[in-house]
């Protein structure tokens, strides 16, 4: 294979040693260039521009002036920002834990054979593909304190009516319930992929040795699917941190600012108050938070003894 590895630049004619063939090494760069141009235009340019704006004081419609680190210092002393960071972290923590647990259990179930498995799995995956705004609207109606179906269902089992997203105390757990409803299937699919790659033999010998179901899960299945759990966890963390549609469509960060995450505060700053400079600084800090948390998880993944499945 190595003799045929194409040259990286230019069209070159090379005579391969030990053979008489003269071959034209294919040039793959032209295939990548259009994508590079687009990525530069819609991804790199915005980033450069955001960095530049973040060191300027600029509200749309007013004059722009260089501000140095002023926006960043303002962030550090902005209690609303710290509060939104706290909301983001608690929302993310819950929105990772719940889907991870439920998704793993669901994957263990769907890995076994039973009647109508394909159909049920198909329905199970549907929330993930449904349009988040549409999902949010229907959940809002279901959460309605007087007319909502959820409080009615609770009343059937004798639980008093809840205020769900309309109460500052319960708004984040309620939003997490929607997020969990929507994204547990993704965790399930990733873990299911992991379970499919688990070999049969170790379980057979474990059974002969008298290991019970829990021991087999704990000492065989779990370590083998650990890399997949880690991938699911990283993806879930990134997505939960970035979550916008569900929160914005259901509460706009309310009641008050009880469910205002960084993303929502960022939106309000940039597109309600048109404070572009401050919003850009917030975007930079937000991105750093996401990268830092992902990096920590990646480090955890590499430090552990788990087998690497990525090198496919």
């Amino acid at each position, binding site marked *: *294979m190595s003799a045929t590895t194409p040259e990286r630049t230019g069209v070159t004619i090379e005579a391969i040693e030990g053979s008489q063939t003269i071959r034209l090494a294919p040039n793959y760069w032209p*295939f990548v260039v259009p*994508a590079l141009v687009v990525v530069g235009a819609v991804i790199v340019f915005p980033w450069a521009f955001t960095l530049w704006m973040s060191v300027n004081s600029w509200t749309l419609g007013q004059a722009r002036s260089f501000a140095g680190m002023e926006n960043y210092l303002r962030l550090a002393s902005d209690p609303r920002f710290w509060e939104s960071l706290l909301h983001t972290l608690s929302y993310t923590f819950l929105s990772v834990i719940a889907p991870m647990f439920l998704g793993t259990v669901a994957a263990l179930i769907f890995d076994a054979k039973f009647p109508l498995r394909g159909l049920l799995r198909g329905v199970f995956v549907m929330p993930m593909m*449904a*349009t*988040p705004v549409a999902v949010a609207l229907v959940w809002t*109606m279901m959460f309605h304190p007087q007319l909502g*179906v959820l409080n009615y269902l609770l009343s059937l089992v004798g639980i008093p009516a809840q205020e769900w997203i309309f109460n500052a105390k319960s708004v984040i757990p309620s939003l997490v319930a929607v997020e969990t409803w929507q994204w547990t299937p993704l965790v399930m699919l990733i873990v299911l992929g992991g379970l499919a790659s688990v070999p049969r033999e170790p379980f057979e010998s474990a059974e002969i040795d008298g290991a019970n179901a829990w021991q087999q899960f704990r000492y065989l299945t779990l370590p083998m699917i650990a890399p997949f759990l880690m991938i699911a966890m990283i993806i879930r963390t990134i997505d939960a941190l970035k979550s916008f549609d569900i929160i914005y469509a259901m509460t706009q960060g309310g009641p008050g600012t009880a469910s205002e995450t960084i993303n929502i505060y960022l939106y309000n700053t940039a597109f309600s108050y048109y404070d572009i400079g401050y919003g850009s600084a917030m975007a930079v800090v937000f*991105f750093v938070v996401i*990268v830092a948390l992902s990096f920590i998880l990646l480090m955890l993944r590499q430090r552990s003894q788990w087998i690497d499945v990525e090198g496919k």
Partner: protein
Amino acid sequence: MTSRLLNQIGLFFAALVFVSPAILFFLWMISLSLKFEIDNGAYPPILIPEHLAWSNYAKVFEENNFLLYFWNSVLVTGTATLLALLIGVPAGYGIARLKAERSAVVIMIARMTPGLSYLIPLFLLFQWIGILGTLWPQIIIHLVVTVPIVVWVMIGYFETTPMELEEAANIDGASSWQVFRLVALPIARPGIVVAFILSIIFSWNNFVFGIVLASRETRTLPVAVYNMLSYEQVSWGPLAAAALVVTLPVLVLTMFAQRQIVAGLTAGAVKGG
């Protein structure tokens, strides 16, 4: 034998418990969309009403201009996906053959970046160019979602397709472009289908770009539904009907292309946004 049967029945019911939130949600969504106001306000709630309110759906299209917004969604999602395929499939091929694994990092970073941080600079850019009243800003910014999905799926796909045929064609004097078009591309068709479907779904569902960039005439469906909520005296029937109209295309696509979607999501584990 009976214990095995019991085991299967147990698994079936366990699965049913996990699937029931999805079933209940979609059933309730359909029920809300087919009830008149009086039934939607009833307590205890009614699942199946005596009179079905098909007029809710008519209202969505007549009073809220949904035909226009549907068409906007089709144009934005369709154009952004086709452009992404045009750019992303060759790019995935090039990256896979160059073994340029680092470029995958760029895509991961694109995935980590919150959509809003693209929005501020691009919003200003579009304002300066003066194209804010058209669909182009949304088409262009949707590339942020669609291009990484397509490139990601295609890298994974081209890495698994055999090199031998391409090498043979190369020896026979085919140019790189000919090798790609006549040898690599036909083999990669299933991968392209996966990329196409995922790109369509995540572009169709996108909401955040639209609320900033869309004007009254250029709204896509998710934005149109959200605006129904904020600007009207909310009546549940038409609202639920609108929500169903928005999400039905992707749900139908999910049902028909389930295998491709699962393959694409678990291989690349991508999600746009």
